[in-house]
C-alpha cells in the first residue's frame, strides 16, 4: 500500500478506485485502480494527457458522472465512503469545482453575480442583499475591477481571465473543504495563466482548504502543488512530492511529458519532443504497462506484465525499467542499439523518437 499516514488528517483517501463506462464494445475502464491520499490543506496536482482519466477521476470522486458508470474500490472523504453513494449533499458545501473553460461553464444567460451568490443563498441562508454584498467582496478578493458593476454583467461581456476569476469566486463562496480545479488555466492567455494560478494557491493557503489541480502541464504543478501524480490510461504512473518529480523522476512517461512542454527558461529554438502515438484503448487495453507502446524503454516484460508498485520514501512509481536506474539505462541503451523498442516503436540512437 501507499505510505502510511494518519487517516484522520486525510481529507480524501482513495484505494483501488475505479470508474468504468458501459459502451457498446464493453466496459471502458477510464479510471483503473487509483490509490492516493490527500492531506487537509495540501495541494495535489494530477498530470496527464487528455484521455488519461484525470478528469473522470475527479468527476467520479465528486459523483458528477451520472448513472451510466460503474464505480468500484473505495473513496473516502473525511472518513466517509463515497463510492456508489449520492454525493449531492457535499456539492456546494464541502466540495467545489472549477472547470476548464469558464465560457462554457458559466451560464450564458445568467448574470455572473447571481451565479456567485446562488450557493450563498442556497446553502448559507443569506438574504439577497447579504449574498450580493458577499459576492462583491469576493469579486474584490479575486481582483475583479469594478466589482459592483460586474455583478450585473453576463459572462460574454467579460474577458477569459475575468470569467475564470468569477469561477474562482464561486468556489470561494462555497468555502469548500476540497476544491477541484480541472485545467483551470488551459483556455486562458499565457499572461493570465500565471496570475490565476497564483491567485488559486493564494486563496487556498489562506482558507486552508485542500486542492486538486488537474493539468496536462507539469510546469503548472511545479512550485504550486505539494504532491504530483502522473496518470496515464486510467492508472497512476508516478506519484511523488512536487520537487522529487522534477529532480528524480522515475517513469519514462513523466520524462516524456516534461520534454513535451516548453519552459520559460529554455533557450530559444529548443526543440520540443512530442510524445508519439495516442493514449491506449481503455476498453480493450494492453495487458502489460499501459505506456509500453509509446515508451522508449519498453522491453518484452513491459508488454506482458503490468509493473508492480515501487515506493521509496514518499515516491511511488509503476515501472519495470525506471529512468535513472541501472535497469532503465540498460533497457534504453539496448533499444537504441536495436533502433526500436519491444513494442516496435522506432527510435534514433540519441533517444529521440523518429
Amino acid at each position: 500500500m501507499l505510505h502510511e499516514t494518519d487517516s484522520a488528517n486525510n481529507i480524501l483517501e482513495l484505494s483501488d478506485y475505479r470508474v468504468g463506462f458501459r459502451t457498446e464494445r464493453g466496459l471502458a475502464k477510464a479510471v483503473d485502480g487509483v490509490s492516493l491520499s490527500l492531506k487537509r490543506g495540501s495541494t495535489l496536482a494530477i498530470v496527464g494527457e487528455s484521455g488519461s482519466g484525470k478528469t473522470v477521476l475527479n468527476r467520479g470522486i465528486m459523483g458528477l458522472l451520472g448513472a451510466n458508470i460503474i464505480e468500484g474500490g473505495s473513496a473516502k472523504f473525511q472518513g466517509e465512503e463515497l463510492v456508489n453513494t449520492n454525493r449531492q449533499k457535499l456539492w456546494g458545501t464541502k466540495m467545489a469545482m472549477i472547470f476548464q473553460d469558464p465560457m462554457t461553464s458559466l451560464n450564458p444567460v445568467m448574470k455572473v453575480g447571481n451565479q456567485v451568490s446562488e450557493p450563498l443563498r442556497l446553502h448559507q441562508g443569506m438574504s439577497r442583499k447579504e449574498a450580493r454584498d458577499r459576492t462583491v467582496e469576493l469579486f474584490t478578493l479575486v481582483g475583479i475591477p469594478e466589482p459592483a458593476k460586474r455583478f450585473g454583467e453576463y459572462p460574454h461581456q467579460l474577458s477569459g481571465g475575468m470569467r475564470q476569476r468569477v469561477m474562482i469566486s464561486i468556489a470561494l463562496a462555497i468555502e469548500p473543504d476540497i476544491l477541484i480545479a480541472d485545467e483551470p488555466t488551459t483556455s486562458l492567455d499565457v499572461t493570465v495563466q500565471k496570475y490565476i494560478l497564483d491567485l488559486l494557491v493564494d486563496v487556498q493557503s489562506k482558507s486552508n482548504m485542500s486542492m486538486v489541480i488537474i493539468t496536462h502541464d507539469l510546469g503548472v504543478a511545479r512550485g504550486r502543488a505539494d504532491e504530483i501524480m502522473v496518470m496515464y490510461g486510467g492508472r497512476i504512473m508516478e506519484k511523488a512530492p512536487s520537487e522529487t518529480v522534477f529532480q528524480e523522476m522515475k517513469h519514462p512517461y513523466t520524462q516524456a511529458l516534461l520534454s513535451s512542454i516548453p519552459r520559460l527558461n529554455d533557450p530559444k529554438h529548443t526543440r520540443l519532443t512530442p510524445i508519439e502515438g495516442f493514449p491506449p484503448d481503455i476498453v480493450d487495453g494492453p495487458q502489460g504497462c499501459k505506456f509500453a507502446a509509446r515508451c522508449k524503454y519498453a522491453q518484452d516484460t513491459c508488454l506482458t506484465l503490468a509493473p508492480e508498485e515501487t515506493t521509496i520514501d514518499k515516491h511511488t512509481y509503476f515501472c519495470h525499467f525506471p529512468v535513472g536506474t541501472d535497469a532503465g539505462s540498460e533497457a534504453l541503451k539496448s533499444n537504441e542499439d536495436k533502433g526500436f523498442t519491444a513494442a516496435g516503436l522506432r527510435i534514433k540512437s540519441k533517444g529521440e523518437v523518429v
Partner: protein
Amino acid sequence: MNEEQEINADEVTNDSQASEEETNISDSTQLEVSEFADKKTLGFGFWLATFWLVLISFLAVFSPILPFKDADKNYIAYEQKENPLTGKVQERPVQPPYAPSGEHWLGTDQDARDILSRTIEGARISLAVGALTALFGMIVGGTLGMIAGYFKGILDKIVGAIFLVVLSFPGLILAILIVALLDRSLLTISVTLGILGVAPIGRLARAQTLSFSEREFVMAAETLGAKKSRILIKELLPNVLIPMSTLAMLVIAVAIVGEGTLAFLGLSVQNSATWGKLILTGSGLSTLESSPWVAFVPMGFLFLTVASFNYLSDRIRDYFDVRDIFVTRD
C-alpha cells in the same frame, strides 16, 4: 432491435445505481471517453408505419374487388318482435345505427351503412388527395427549387420571391378562397393544397441543389462538358430526391388533414365520402351520443395514416441527417 437494447440498458442502470434519481439529470455526460453513438437504424416503429400505409393503400386501391360490403347500401336489420298494436309477433326493422358486431365489424351509421366499407371508400379519396398534392408539390416546387439552386443569379431571386409570397398567404384562407370560387373537384382540391407544399419543398430542393452543385461529381460532369439539363437530371435530381421525398410525406399528411379541414368547413370533394366528411357526419351531438363509432372509426384511420406519414418522414430525415425542422400545423 434498437429499442430493445436501450430498454435493457435502462434496467441495468436502474439496478446498479439506486441513487440515480437524485444525482442524475441526464444520462449523457460529455467526457474524454467517447461514447459510441447509437447505430443508425430505422427501428420497429418505421416498419409498423410502413405496414399500415401499405395495408391501407392496398385496401383503398383494391376495395372494389375485395369482399367488402357495399358502402352505400342500407343494411337494415330485422328482428322478430311483438307488434304492440296487434299483439302478433312479426318481423320488424331495428332502428339503426347498429353497434359493431360480427355482421358489421365497425358498426353502421344512422342509415345502416357499413362503417368499415365507408371508411375504406373514404381512404380512396383521402389518399388520392394526399398523393396528388404531394405530386404537384414535388413537381412544381422541386423543379422551381432545383432551377433556382442550380442556375442561381436572377432566376434564384425570382423563384425565392415567389416562394416568399406563397408563404406569406394565410394558407387555409387561400385554399377556401380557391375552392369556393372554382369548384370542389378532386383535382382542384389537390392542386390547391399542393400550392401550400410548393414553397417548403422548393426551398429544400433549392438548398440541396445549391450544396450538391458545388460537389466534386457535379464539377467533374461540368468540366467534361455535360449539358446543364443532363447534370440537373442525372447528377442532382437523385440527391435532391431523398430529402424532398421526406418532405413530400409530410405534405401528404398535411393534405389529408387539409382535406378534413375543408370538409369541416363544408368545402370538401363533392359527391364522395372522404375521411373528413365521414368524421363530420359522425360528429353531430346526437350521433356522438348514440353511435360514437361513426366519427371515431374514420378518425382512427385518418390518425394512423397521418401519424404514419409523419413518423416515416421523421425517421428518414433522421436517417439521412436532413437538419431542417419542419413543423406541420393545421
